[in-house]
């Protein structure tokens, strides 16, 4: 589920005006920044709070008087009471990261001649991880970021990120500059088409655009070079367009 403002949230926020709008939006973005919490519970709680804020404003109350002068402390207490993400919800959250990383790393490998996997491919994964994990914390930074809890949270995430990156690099160094056959990559992409299709059929929130992307990549790589140049370029254009569209959809969380 998206961690951006949902349409109901946007509609409710539009009903709050003036300085109170900034207060409400900062609170909502802060609550949305906790990626470890059940996103459905977070969303329903936010919507209920916004309903009450609209009532309060219509009754002539300022939101700091209605909700509290220290909204971050209140938000922290609210978050503490919300349930954590389930395993399936963690998969929803990490699925785009896994797919985009694999697409980035293997596409890079495929276009080398001969196809090979370099340590540099790890940067694709590292970049997405940075956007995913640290971005969530930064997006909630409308409140005083120097508050100890927020700073601690950001610090822990950064530590995990760099720790993970160094750990992964240590393992992957052994595989650096490995020449990988084009056929192996094709088999991998074909397998990913099946895996992502099965995943989508099991859980619709894992999105249909992943099997389409992997399938397109497999077909383009398998039959593209044997096609006339015009058709080959057209297929490449479709592939690139779908990749960009998928990346935009997938990172909108």
């Amino acid at each position, binding site marked *: 589920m998206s961690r951006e403002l949902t349409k109901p949230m946007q509609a409710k926020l539009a009903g709050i005006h003036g300085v109170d709008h900034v207060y409400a939006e900062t609170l909502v973005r802060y609550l949305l920044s906790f990626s470890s919490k059940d996103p459905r519970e977070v969303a*329903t*709680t936010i*919507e*209920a*709070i916004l*309903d*009450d*804020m609209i*009532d*309060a404003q219509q009754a002539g109350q300022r939101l700091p*008087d*209605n*909700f*509290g*002068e*220290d*909204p971050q*402390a*209140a*938000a922290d*207490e*609210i978050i*503490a*009471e*919300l*349930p954590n993400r389930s395993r399936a919800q963690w998969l929803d959250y990490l699925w785009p990261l896994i797919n985009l990383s694999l697409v980035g790393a293997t596409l890079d490998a495929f276009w080398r001649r001969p196809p090979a996997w370099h340590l540099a491919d790890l940067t694709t994964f590292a970049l997405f991880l940075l956007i995913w994990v640290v971005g969530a914390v930064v997006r909630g930074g409308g409140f005083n970021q120097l508050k100890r809890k927020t700073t601690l949270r950001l610090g822990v995430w950064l530590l995990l990120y760099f720790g993970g990156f160094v750990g992964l690099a240590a393992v992957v160094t052994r595989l650096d500059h490995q020449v990988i056959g084009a056929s192996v990559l094709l088999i991998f992409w074909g397998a990913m088409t099946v895996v992502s299709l099965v995943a989508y059929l099991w859980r619709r929130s894992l999105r249909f655009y992943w099997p389409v992307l992997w399938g397109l990549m497999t077909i383009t790589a398998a039959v593209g070079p044997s096609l006339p140049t015009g058709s080959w370029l057209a297929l490449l254009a479709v592939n690139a367009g779908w990749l960009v569209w998928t990346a935009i959809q997938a990172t909108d969380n």
Partner: protein
Amino acid sequence: MAKIPSQLLKGTLEGALLMIIGRGETYGYALQETLAELGFGQVPEGTIYPLLLKMQRNKQIEAVRHPSASGPDRKYYHLTATGEASIAEFLPSWRQLVGAMAQLEGDKGNE
């Protein structure tokens, strides 16, 4: 009306919220208004919401969404059997506390 210190409210607010919800299904802002009408003062929503979520987690109350009298769907809370049991548990302790305080106040008056 003087503002009740938040530390004094803390221990009783959960019981008060359960009792208000026990009167009939209600929602966040209405709870805040009822608390004010009853004399609890202006209790911030930021104090009420963590308690509502805690009570939901403890299955003392349940939340349902349905259309409000004023328009779109909103979240309403109602009491569960566990919530009723919690009130039954809270009230004797509360009465004991009120009695003790009254006695203390009376003793002070007689000095």
